């Protein structure tokens, strides 16, 4: 009851969050800080073996990056992926969720599973199968097209078409997880809203745009943010399918970083590139939060 001595500090909340914070600091915060430091050095394999071989190069890695044709191309490619891929994923997963929400018998339940499958399939298996589908000479896609006498499409051999091919693959793979989120949100919308709308004589389209979509606002926001971040780090698909080719046409920023770091052992340069990407992601995410707040 002695107010002058102040409240004793309650240590229990800190004890509870300590494990999470310590893990976060050791495995995320410290590495990020170290990587930030590394990005100002010429760290390579030699430097890794013996730290005395590392020297400070200031902003050189960063200035080099922005005059590196390959890096600029990877930024362009990543923008291409994001601008086309993200809306496509959101629209398709939302449509699939809306359709699957119409019923709940075994057919709908089966298709929920079917649409979710790609998300949990191993990327290497996917790469093998899609590699066959996309093969110019004997791929299934070109075979089907040849039946309706359409010429061979070089699915993975022409820079722009290859980007689109990878987007198709990534959308196919990305629908599942987002569909589940949308489905959960859809099932959380109280039936009474629909009943009220029907009673007011609203048709299906009106119900969709005036009831369902506004009530899915939070789910949509969540899906948009996570999908956007995921697509800015677009990596697996070009890594397993094209290795960045043809003519660096499918090289994404993340793949560029991987190649610089682990193929050519230029850790300093790769760390600088990953910081550029890190900052781009933060900016894009902040802009999104800003927009959603102003609504």
């Amino acid at each position, binding site marked *: 009851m002695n107010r002058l001595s102040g409240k004793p500090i309650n240590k229990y909340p800190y004890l509870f969050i300590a494990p999470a914070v310590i893990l976060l600091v050791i495995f995320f915060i410290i*590495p990020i800080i*170290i990587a930030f430091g590394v990005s100002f050095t010429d760290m390579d394999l030699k430097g890794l073996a013996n730290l005395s071989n590392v020297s400070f190069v200031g902003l050189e890695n960063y200035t080099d990056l922005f005059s590196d044709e390959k890096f600029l191309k990877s930024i362009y490619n990543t923008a291409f992926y994001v601008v086309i891929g993200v809306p496509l994923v959101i629209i398709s997963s939302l449509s699939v969720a809306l359709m699957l929400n119409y019923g709940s018998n075994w057919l709908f339940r089966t298709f929920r599973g079917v649409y979710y499958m790609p998300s949990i399939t191993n990327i290497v298996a996917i790469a093998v199968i899609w590699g066959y589908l996309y093969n110019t000479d004997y791929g299934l896609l070109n075979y089907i097209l040849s039946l309706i006498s359409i010429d061979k499409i070089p699915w993975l051999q022409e820079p722009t078409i290859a980007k689109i091919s990878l987007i198709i693959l990534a959308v196919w793979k990305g629908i599942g997880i987002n569909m589940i989120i949308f489905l959960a949100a859809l099932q959380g919308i109280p039936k009474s809203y629909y009943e009220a709308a029907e009673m007011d004589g609203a048709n299906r389209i009106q119900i969709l745009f005036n009831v369902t979509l506004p009530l899915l606002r939070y789910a949509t926001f969540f899906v948009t943010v996570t999908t956007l971040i995921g697509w800015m780090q677009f990596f697996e698909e070009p890594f397993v399918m094209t290795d960045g080719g043809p003519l*660096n046409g499918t090289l994404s920023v993340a793949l560029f970083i991987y190649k610089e770091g682990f193929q050519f052992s230029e850790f300093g340069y790769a760390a600088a590139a990953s910081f550029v990407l890190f900052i781009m992601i933060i900016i894009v995410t902040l802009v999104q939060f800003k927009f959603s707040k102003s609504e």
Partner: protein
Amino acid sequence: MKKLLVLMSMMVLSLALVACSGGDEGESADGEKTLKVWAMGEEGKKLKDFVKDFEENNPKITVDVQAIPWGKAHDKLLTAVASGNGPDVLQIGTTWVPEFAEAGAFKDLSEYMDDYESFNKDNFFDGSVSTMKYNDQVVGVPWYVDTRVMYYRTDLLKEAGFDQAPDTWSELKDAAKKLADRGEGQYGIDIDRNDQINPFIFAWQNGYEADLANKDLNFESPEFKEAMEYYVSYFEQGLSQKEKGGDIIQGFKTGKKPIFFSGPWMIDIIQDKAPGIEGKWATAVMPKKESRTSSMGGSNLAVFHNTDKVDASLKFISYMTQVDTQLDWLETSNTLPSRTEAWEDSALKDDPMYETFGKQLEQTKPGIQTEQFERIAQELLATLEKVVVGDADLEKELEKFNKEAQELITED
């Protein structure tokens, strides 16, 4: 991106943790030693059983072989270099030697060279000897070798009027033209555009040579340019398929791609997957321009820089490079012996497939011995891709490539 960031800095972190490791000496009271050996791919798996014989002869040494898939090997070695926590003996692909030698991953074996007669340079092919050294250190001993030769369909070449394999550049071109003329979808020769060593093979055959002592890669030399023109011409004249088409085995089987260059591993694969063309194909040494040079590949055995079991390690390497062991290993793994003496054995000499390799191995060069080779080779492939697929001008692109490569090599 965070994942990569984290991975990268974990490697740096692990440096700091080196001090905490140790203690694992692998040596028990009575002087028994466990030798840690890293081997890659299929060889790694097969080596596990293969070392039993060595263990019997050296009861005090136990060999612990760890098989590492090729795809993971580079990362694994990086981590070992960063942490200083490596094996005692490791297999190292010849193209990786300069990169890891530069980082100090290997023990300098110069002082032990006279102690084991099987380490003698005269035992190996000329192409291998240059992979043993880095600057003035001896960093490894050739374990097995491979090289590229020409695989061709004897029946189809006969139809095209060639009783023997094309022997020169112009004959090869001629044959390719005749074979490609067979009709739509038929090609003359298959050139894998992702194969880094292929452009260099052509360049070497045309008399190209890098001058590393003066840090001059000579990519501007007429020999190099001409070889690249030759390479590109196969695609421009439709003699080789530009786009990634079917699997080469399929192409070889159906005859769509009746000639290609590849290593010894293809013999088994063709026999396995295309038994139908048995007797209708053969191997031949590379066609000649100035020379018949092909690439020297394969793996060396090296000792990790901070091992404390040097004697046991060297004993093991010495065992693996004995002629008898190498012939046994040939039977086990189908990889080619690095010891020239082994090639005198009838198992190799009297087999027409292997005989070709024996001849070709005498005219080989390893990739340019600089730690930047991987990067330079990738840049060259990208440059050629621009010309073949992107219709860029070869002359201009080569100039750009030369500038970049030259910068890479003079950087350090």
